[in-house]
């Protein structure tokens, strides 16, 4: 049975090797720009989820953009990622209730949040995943003070749930680890400039 939890991690671990390179870069950008949106985020945007930062304790996070190379897009597909206004509502409520607290805490404290998330995610009848990922949530704002949340997630061991056999008869396999011998999207972007 999947253990559902969110464990808050020490944000300083991001800068000292406890997260991947993209998380470290993102946090460095946040510190360097005092949380103000800046051009350095453009190359990282494909990896990010962007939320309206005006949500209250009673509201659900409103996703505005889902990066096409984000963990969510990898798991749920580009079709899901290209409908941000309705995407979150298609996920199981248990998952939403578990993960939304991190967004709310980030808004309340106006400080980055770094977490380990372990849960199950169901989406439609074809996606049933046992998730384990690190998540970095950063409170950015515009020059006029309008808040946005930028979220980056890095898979640290997501698996399809070992339940019924898949319709194609194949056994479920672990998702490939992006940073194990593979060039990350941000590295590709930098190398092409």
């Amino acid at each position, binding site marked *: 049975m999947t253990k559902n939890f969110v464990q808050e991690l020490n944000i300083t671990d991001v800068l000292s090797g406890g997260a991947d390179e993209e998380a470290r870069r993102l946090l460095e950008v946040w510190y360097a720009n005092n949380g103000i*949106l800046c051009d350095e985020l453009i190359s990282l945007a494909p990896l990010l989820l*962007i939320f309206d930062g005006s949500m209250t304790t009673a509201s659900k996070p409103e996703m*505005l953009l889902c990066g096409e190379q984000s963990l969510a897009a990898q798991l749920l597909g580009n079709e899901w990622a290209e409908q941000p206004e309705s995407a979150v509502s298609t996920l199981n409520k248990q998952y939403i209730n578990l993960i939304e607290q991190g967004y709310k805490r980030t808004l309340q404290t106006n400080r980055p949040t770094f977490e380990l998330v372990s849960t199950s995610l169901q989406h439609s009848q074809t996606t049933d995943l046992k998730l384990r990922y690190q998540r970095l949530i950063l409170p950015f704002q*515009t020059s006029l003070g309008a808040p946005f949340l930028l979220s980056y997630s890095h898979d640290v061991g997501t698996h399809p749930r070992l339940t019924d056999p898949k319709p194609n008869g194949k056994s479920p396999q672990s998702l490939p680890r992006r940073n194990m011998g593979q060039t990350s999207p941000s590295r590709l972007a930098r190398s092409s400039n």
Partner: protein
Amino acid sequence: MDNCPHYLKYKHLYVGERALNRHEQLHDLLDAAEISGCYIFAVIICIRFYGHSNPRELKVHQIDRFYNWLDPIVSAALHNAARKQ
């Protein structure tokens, strides 16, 4: 609407009695994005769907999709900035 700050009028549909064309509406939206400090999202969306970083150069058949993506973000930026003031 006449007493609203300029940037809150970004959804102009007319100049006088002439309806704005799609390019004019695009520039109106992008002006609002610049003023509200969220132009970075316009660039991000333009790169994602059209492979370049200058949304003001979008062709007319590209504007609808781009506009639908950016409009909620600019609305959020303007609305939430106004709440802070």
